[in-house]
């Protein structure tokens, strides 16, 4: 191919509409390019990434016999793939492309036009210097194991798993808790349509459990992930339920007989209700199999349960209870991975001024969901102040909802908006109005962000239902007086529209707690080599164009682990992640990084520094016959190598080098850019 001939470079400077052209003197850059060695063609164009733009390049490659191409335009992180493809289509090796970033690094960040133009020239010059030394690389492919591992079985995980399974591929779903469903299963109604959360979720949960292509592992955790795109291996710990999965019929007699029945706060009910030590998280739980909580169960924690021994085992006619059961390790192989580990709600205790820890009539939005849910501890009645047994209690008359608790709040380190609170509080206000027609309801807000489909309409409807919206962020909530019979709370707040300080009363306060990254986010990061964005949620490969991809090939994100979302957005992203994973699964092959390290055996001193440095264990020392002498030299595993180049910086003699980023390709860039 023409690449072997002496370099013939084409330089294409993009105006990017006016994005570059309005700051950088593009013609001047083109002219400068033409003065550089090896440059045969230099052109400017409005949009190089457009078809006509790309055709310019293709035609020149064909007609002018170009064998190196330089695109001076936007960031290579944006369009490098685009133009590599262009070269390929014109029959040139895609790695004969070099880009000069004169938009993100010049026109968008520099005001001084002259200086910007000079810098653009330099960057093009550096690109030429490197292009002269580029070499053809070959793109290899590896087979993709036709299966996907989904971590987390909330609505995101469920949806992604179902889509991939329906496409005919094997899916492993790993859920940490005893049941699938995630946070959505805790919700009562969903905004703005008010359809019952359980009613729309439960069928999907069941499909998940029954799908022939899906292997569901609840109460399980991934402990180790190795391998690379197309060929991942995962070690999964199936925690002991102490209940024989196959024998348990889910009848529930065990729970009724448990000595701790109704004495353990239920996670599912946000501790508004109680459960037994052997339990089903909630009635519609999937799988409908009981689990023993080893921390609480007397038999497991104390080693003794009553005089006659464990009552649950006694009661279980199926003989499913098995205290000897042990954790089980399973190892699976998969080609792709979808991370859908969800979120935690903001811990209201971190806003002590709101008194959530002190007053039982200050509750979080999620607690409210359980309180008003027909399947909840109060059968749907918003009863407060119930006793230990859950008896008694009163219905509130003055209900206050507070926005942005733990969101848009630098003081707790959450600068972001949680995107769901405005609407779920509106919905909850509506539900209260429904259940307590006479209650007076006030919502304290900073702004109301009703941006979604049907949101504004719903917000308007709620307001017309006599819910009062006060613009103000409460500074403090405290009990009006010590009398235990009087539940009245005082909300100190400034109505910022009328600039009047209020001390409003309420006997029920609902905190619109925001969404946060999970507490165990670190473990997951280490497990899958993910990175975090500033807000602590997982970082996608590109905020606009690769919103479900991660930096690691074959690993995708779905749902709130990537950032707060409502249900429709979560489902949409889950489907996106599924289709991304399906691309690899359907195509059956994954491209292997071409820009990887190689060893020049004759220069290698066999010290093994590179072996020690390589984060992927991609390098080993092997015997080499050097003119009759057996010496050790480094050898690179081409699939494991990711081309980071740490080896090259550790190598004393420069014997190991990452392709496209070799010393001899970087030094000329330094030579050009270093000169003042």
């Amino acid at each position, binding site marked *: 191919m023409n690449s072997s001939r002496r370099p013939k470079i084409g330089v294409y400077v993009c105006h990017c509409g006016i994005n570059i052209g309005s700051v950088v003197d593009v013609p001047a850059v083109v002219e400068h390019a033409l003065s550089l060695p090896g440059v045969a063609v230099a052109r400017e164009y409005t949009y190089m990434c457009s078809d006509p733009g790309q055709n310019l390049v293709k035609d020149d490659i064909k007609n002018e016999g170009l064998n190196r191409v330089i695109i001076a335009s936007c960031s290579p992180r944006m369009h490098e793939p685009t133009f590599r493809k262009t070269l390929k289509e014109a029959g040139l090796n895609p790695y004969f492309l070099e880009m000069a970033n004169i938009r993100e690094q010049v026109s968008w960040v520099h005001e001084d036009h002259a200086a910007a133009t000079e810098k653009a020239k330099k960057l093009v010059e550096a690109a030429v210097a490197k292009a002269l030394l580029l070499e053809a690389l070959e793109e290899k492919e590896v087979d993709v194991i036709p299966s996907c591992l989904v971590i987390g079985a909330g609505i995101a995980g469920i949806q992604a798993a179902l889509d991939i399974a329906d496409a005919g591929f094997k899916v492993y779903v790993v859920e940490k808790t005893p049941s699938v469903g995630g946070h959505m299963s805790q919700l009562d109604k969903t905004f703005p349509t008010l359809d019952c959360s359980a009613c729309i979720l439960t069928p999907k949960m069941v499909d998940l459990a029954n799908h022939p292509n899906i292997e569901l592992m609840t109460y399980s955790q991934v402990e180790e992930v190795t391998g690379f795109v197309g060929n991942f291996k995962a070690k999964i710990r199936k925690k002991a339920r102490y209940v024989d999965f196959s024998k348990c019929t889910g009848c529930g007699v065990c729970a009724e007989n448990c000595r701790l029945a109704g004495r353990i706060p239920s996670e599912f009910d946000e501790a508004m209700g109680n459960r037994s030590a052997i339990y089903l998280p909630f009635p519609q739980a999937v799988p409908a199999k009981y689990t023993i909580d080893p921390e609480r169960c007397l038999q497991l924690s104390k080693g003794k349960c009553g005089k006659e021994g464990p009552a649950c085992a006694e009661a279980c006619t199926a003989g499913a209870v098995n205290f000897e059961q042990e954790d089980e390790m399973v190892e699976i192989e998969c080609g792709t991975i979808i991370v859908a580990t969800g979120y935690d709600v903001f811990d209201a205790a971190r806003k002590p001024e709101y008194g959530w820890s002190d007053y039982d009539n200050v509750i979080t939005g999620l607690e409210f969901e359980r309180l008003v849910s027909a399947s909840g501890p109060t059968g749907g009645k918003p009863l407060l102040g119930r006793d230990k047994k859950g008896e008694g209690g009163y219905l509130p008359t003055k209900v206050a909802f507070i926005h942005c608790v733990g969101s848009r709040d630098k003081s707790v380190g959450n600068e972001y908006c949680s995107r769901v609170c405005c609407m779920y509080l509106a919905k909850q206000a509506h539900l209260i109005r429904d259940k307590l027609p006479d209650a007076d309801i006030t919502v304290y807000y900073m702004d109301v962000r009703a941006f979604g489909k049907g949101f504004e309409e719903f917000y308007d409807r709620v307001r017309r239902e006599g819910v009062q919206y006060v613009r103000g962020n409460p500074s403090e909530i405290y009990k009006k007086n010590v009398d235990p019979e009087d539940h009245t709370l005082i909300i100190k707040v400034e109505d910022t529209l009328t600039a009047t300080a209020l001390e409003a009363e309420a006997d029920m306060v609902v905190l619109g707690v925001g969404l946060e990254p999970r507490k165990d986010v670190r473990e997951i990061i280490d497990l899958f080599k993910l990175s975090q964005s500033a807000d602590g949620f997982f970082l996608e490969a590109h905020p606009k164009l690769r919103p479900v991809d991660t930096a690691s090939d074959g690993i995708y994100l779905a749902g709130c682990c990537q950032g707060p979302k409502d249900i429709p957005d979560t489902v949409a992203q889950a489907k996106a992640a599924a289709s991304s994973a399906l691309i690899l699964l359907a195509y059956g092959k994954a491209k292997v990084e071409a820009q990887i390290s190689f060893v020049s055996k*004759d*220069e*290698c*001193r*066999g*010290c*093994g*520094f*590179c072996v*020690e*440095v390589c984060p992927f264990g991609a390098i080993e*020392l092997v015997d080499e016959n*050097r*003119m*009759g*002498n*057996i*010496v*050790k030299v480094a050898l690179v595993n081409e699939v494991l190598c990711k081309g980071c180049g740490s080896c090259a910086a*550790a190598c*004393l*003699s*420069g*014997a190991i080098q990452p392709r496209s980023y*070799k*010393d*001899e390709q970087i*030094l000329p860039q330094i030579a050009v850019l270093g000169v003042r």
Partner: protein
Amino acid sequence: MVDEKNLRDKAKEVLERDDVRRLIGWARGTYGYESAPVVLKDASEVDKLIFDPTCVQNPASFITLEEKKPVPRGQEPDTRKVAVLVKGCDSRAIVQQLVEKAYDREGVIVLGVPCTGVVDRRKAAKMFGDTSEPVEISEEGDKYVLTVNGEKKEAPKAELVADKCLRCRYPNPLVYDMLVADEVEKWADDEFADVDEFAGQTPEEKWKFWEEQFSKCIRCYSCRNVCPMCYCVECVVTKQKPQWTRRATDISENTAYHIQRAWHLAGRCIECMECQRVCPVDIPIMTLNRKLTRDVKEMFEYEPGVDVEAEPLLACYNPQDPEEYIM
């Protein structure tokens, strides 16, 4: 004190073995205060071996200096062992060479020579003048006794001994298969006072110093070649593609060369000070190495050439590594 008879007997023993190819040690020099490294291939030569205060060179250097000669077709490479005599400081080179897999431990037979200090040729010449006749030096208590042109001369040990010995922490070999003499007491320690003193200067003062030093450099590469750690097949410094440093001798290239040389010894320099000793234009090369040695010790609690099991400094890390200055 090392009994040369005993040393030669041990050497003879070793050289008589069929699995030994050569033995590296010291021999009397041809003039002045010189001794000469010597490579013996036959037991009959052992009488050439000496050990006295002139034996400053580091024999470990000559293990890695030996080229792997092309083996003619049909012949087997000579894989017999190499025996080497080493002082305490020299032995650290062996340790580091093992850390860097220069050869297998089984490939070498190390004859350890406990040492009480060696003479700095330059100091001696300054004091007693140079001479065409080889000078014999022996140690008597805290004095050196020299025979210069037949005349006996004396000098306090402290005035003739090499700088490295004044701060010697390892007078006894750290790795050996046999000792040719009894171990000796450690008599000195290293506080890096010289490094601190130099570091105390302003950037301008420092550069003024180095500019003068580096401009003397004739780029003979003796400092690199004598270094027991420098045995790359192809050294980046003299590489043509890419060319890190140009052959031109000017302040720019000379400085780059010396920084590169020092950098490549970061966490590897075992302070035998050979680089500085061999310099024909007296560049205080160790001033760079010792700075790194000190910082490596302080920042990473790391000392090269003392533990065969150690990981190479720059091929490992600690998540808690210091990072002041990092924005």
